Structure formats: C-alpha cells, structure tokens
C-alpha cells in the first residue's frame, strides 16, 4: 500500500486532509488483481473507485473469430469457480436458437453437476470470506469439503475447475456408477458439515459483530445497479433465475430460495449458507429421479449455425445472473457474443455502498459481494 497526501476537491471534508490508499491490485482481500483506489478521511472512506481490467482477456472478441464449439471452452474460464453454470448458458443459447431438444437424462445430470459446482463455489467463498475477517481455520475445513466435489467432477469431466462437460444437445459423456454413488455419499456427508458450520461459525459472536448491520445495500440499490445473486437475496428480494425464468428441469424440482431482508453482510452470508443446503436438496431429488436414456440428443448438427437474429439465455450462477447474448448473421462464427457477468454488476454498487464506511468494514462488504476478478474483467 502506498500513501500520498492530497486535497480531494468536492469530498465531504474538502479543505481538510484526505489521502489516497491503494487497496490492491495485489492485496489478499481483493482475491485477484482488482485495485480499489480509496480516498480516506482518517479511517473512513470518502470515495472508493474500483480499477479493473488487469486480467482483461477480451473473451467477447475471441467469440467473434471462432466457431460456437470452439468458443465453448472459453465460457468456463470467465468465472473459474462457476464453470458449469457458464457453459450451461452458452450451450443453452445455442440449443435455443438451433432448436435442439436435450434429453431428460442430460438435463438432470446438468442440475446435479451445476449444484455441486455451486456448493464448491460457495465453499471457496466461505473459506476466503472468513479469512478476510481474520478467521483462518474455516478455510481448511471448507477446502476439505470442496476437494470431495472436485474429485467427483474430475471423475466424469476430466477437469477440476474449468469444466467443458456440457455440449450442444447434452453432455460430453454419461455419468458412471462411481459418480452417482459418490454424490449420494457426499450429500449424506455434507449435511452434518453444514450443521457444524452453523454451530461453529454462524453463531460466533465475533463474526456477528463484524457482519451484522455492516454494509447495508437496499433492495432499490440492487435494482438500480442490477446486482443479483446472493447480494439481492440478502436484501429481501427473491430473485433467482432458476425460479423467475426456470431453465433446464428446475421447474420440476422442489427447492426454496433463501431470502434474508436485513440487507447487511450477515444476510448475504446467511443466503449462501442456506443455498448450500438447498443445492443438496436439489442434488438428492435429481439423483432419485434421474431417468435412463441417452445423454446427448440424437440429432445435433455437425456444423452449428444459428439462424440470423439475436438470442439470449440467462442462468443463475453462483454469484448471480449470468447471461449470454449471441447475435448471429447465419454463419458458423457468431457475429457478436455478449457476456453479462454477475461480479461486474455486483461491483458497480461498491462505490455507493462503501461511502462513509470504515476500512475493515469495507473489506467485509467487498468479501460479502463474493467477487471473482476474471468474471469482472472478462
């Protein structure tokens, strides 16, 4: 961090002494190369200006110079903790435009793997968030649990993080008995672990004092900034793409959307903790109902061409709403691919939400947004 003394024109304390504090781009609390330029009045933030783009890779341009099948692996590298959901959106938009019917077995496996991925992502957040707040141990527990998910997914996809398991019309390969047994065992194993986290961490008085009433974000602010995912559900709004505009087979499955109306960091924490339990419910049901049959559609064109026009597909990723807009001119290569990422939209409200906060509280707020930097920079 570097210090430099300036007079900030127009700040609430104009004429008094403020200074600029650089948080990042290599700060542990930003979890990646995000820089936040903070104008400080003592311990208080008068202005927080996120500086992005350190790992900008121009995925959208890459989308314009390769075929749909060639671009698919790119989508798993945008939010590397939520790859299943991102590939789901891209195969979804192509299936929608071309009119490919996905077999039910593939859809159920997509739900199982997507929800496993969601739990794995939330476990990373859980460990890292508590690390930000000064609690080291939970990270070790969380990564232990996450390892089990990564092993399961590695068995069927061959990858531990950047899965490219969903294909146009279905899946890369069918799930095997080892995966099904392992996932059943994982659900049984994970439930008591969540209870343990509830007892050991959620009720912890230090945690509660660090989070309760801190970083309030109103439902209106979420709407005006387009914040989604656990952020808006921690502000009392039950917006979840899986319920509002259901895709895949989510409308056939029974699950609740955890909503907490307190709008503070604790509410966002509780949303994610509850979501893991709901994901387990979804996995259990999908496993019980998993139909037999093909795992990929019989008729998938060898060369994918979308009819001219534009197509949109949104999914509920671990961090919120992820959407793909593809504009096609009828060729093998997309004319335009737009990626709407949740971390980008969730970060836009940070400047407003952090105004007047103390620095350690702002770090709690930043952690409660659960940012993945490649998801912002794309």
């Amino acid at each position: 961090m570097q210090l430099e003394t300036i007079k900030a024109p127009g700040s609430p304390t104009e004429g008094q002494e403020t200074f600029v504090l650089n948080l990042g781009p290599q700060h542990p609390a930003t979890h990646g190369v995000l820089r936040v330029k903070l104008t400080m009045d003592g311990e208080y933030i008068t202005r927080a200006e996120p500086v992005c783009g350190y790992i900008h890779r121009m995925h959208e341009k890459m989308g314009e110079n390769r075929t749909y099948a060639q671009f698919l692996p790119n989508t798993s590298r945008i939010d590397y903790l939520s790859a299943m959901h991102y590939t789901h959106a891209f195969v979804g938009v192509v299936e929608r435009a071309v009119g490919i019917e996905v077999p039910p077995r593939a859809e159920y496996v997509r739900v199982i793997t997507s929800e496993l991925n969601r739990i794995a992502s939330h476990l990373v957040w859980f460990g890292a968030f508590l690390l930000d707040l000064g609690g080291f141990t939970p990270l070790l527990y969380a990564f232990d649990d996450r390892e089990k998910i990564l092993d399961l997914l590695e068995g069927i996809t061959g990858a531990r993080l950047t899965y490219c398991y969903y294909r146009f019309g279905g899946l890369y390969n069918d799930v095997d008995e080892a995966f099904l047994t392992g996932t059943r065992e994982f659900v049984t194993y994970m439930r008591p672990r969540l209870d343990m986290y509830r007892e050991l961490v959620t009720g912890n008085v230090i945690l509660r004092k660090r989070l309760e009433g801190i970083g309030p974000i109103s439902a209106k602010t979420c709407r005006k900034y387009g914040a989604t995912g656990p952020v808006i559900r921690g502000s009392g709004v039950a917006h979840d793409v899986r319920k509002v505009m259901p895709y895949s087979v989510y409308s056939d499955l029974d699950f609740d959307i955890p909503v907490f109306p307190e709008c503070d960091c604790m509410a966002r924490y509780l949303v994610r903790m509850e979501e893991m339990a709901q994901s387990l419910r979804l996995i259990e049901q999908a496993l019980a109902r998993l139909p037999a049959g093909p795992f990929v559609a019989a008729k998938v064109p060898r060369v994918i061409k979308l009819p001219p026009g534009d197509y949109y597909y949104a999914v509920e990723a671990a961090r919120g709403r992820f959407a793909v807009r593809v504009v096609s001119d009828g060729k093998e290569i997309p004319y335009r691919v737009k990626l709407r990422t949740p971390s980008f939209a969730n970060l836009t409200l940070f400047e407003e939400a952090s105004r007047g906060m103390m620095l350690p509280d702002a770090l709690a707020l930043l952690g409660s947004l659960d940012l993945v930097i490649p998801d912002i920079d794309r």
Partner: protein
Amino acid sequence: MIPSLDELHAAFKRLLPPAVSPAQAGDCGGAPTAEGTAPTPAPAAALCQIVDPKAKGYHLDATVAPDQVVAAAELLDQRGFAIDTITGVDWMAARQMEIVYDFFHLTAPLQVVVRTRVPRDKPELPTISKVFPGANWHERETHDFFGIRFLGHPDLSPLLLPEDATYHPLRKDFAGAA
C-alpha cells in the same frame, strides 16, 4: 406492482414512433405515414414486438430512436425493472452502431430488450446512468469496446482497456486481434 406484458407493450407504443412526429404518438409505427417519416434507420415494422421467450430468451423487443433511450429507461424503472446489461453491435456494412439495453424484472418473468441505432461515423446518444446508476459501467465498457459516446456520462475513461487505450477492439474493422 407487477407489470403485464400487454401493459408494457402499450406503454412502449405510446413512446413510439420517434419524437419527430408527435402528432402520431398514439400509433406504434403501424401507420404508413409513420413508416415513411421515421428517421430511425431501423425498419418501422420492428419497432415494438412481443416475442416468444422460448425461442429468443426475452419477451419484449423495442426499437427506439437514440434520443428516446432515457424515456424508455424511465418507463422500465417505474415498473420495477432492473438494469441487466448494455452492449453494442457494429453493423459495419450498414454504417450503423446498434446499442442494446437489457432489462429484467425482479420478481416477474419479464425480460425486455431496448435497442437503438446510431450512425457509425457519429456514434453518440444520451446516457441512462442518471436513471440507472448501474448503467455507468456498462456504458463505459461499451465506449471502450465500440467508441460509442454516451452524452452526459460522468466518466468515459477506459474501464477494462488500458488507461491510454485509443482503440476500440469490438469494431469490426479493428485489426489488432489475432
């Protein structure tokens, strides 16, 4: 209040056609005279359509004039919509830049697309960041990638590109990419 698709469609109809013919503000580009005088480059037939969400992923597709985007944003803001994203599409052959705004409703299954086109050699239109502050970054990004200038925007400095970037990589004539 949960808006209905029909009410929303009617509200957009009142907004259209472009402000150049206010006498016909009650029509939705249906009148032949409105089609003849419409200054927007987009075809008048596509001004305001209810589309099949199963095929497209959204429910309403509205094409407005560049100076109507703020009014369209206000219309959706009043009905409880949130800003989803803003982006551009470079139609180089037609010498136009399309700006696409996506909005989603928080609780109702409604997804609305608002689009407009500006001349490619003078890509300017008003900002909607005063209605939706979240549009600020989306517009900044669109300026980065396409060089579209959002008039009245508080800060159009590069967001994702390097701070000294003078190029716009998503323009179809950008030759820097492999």
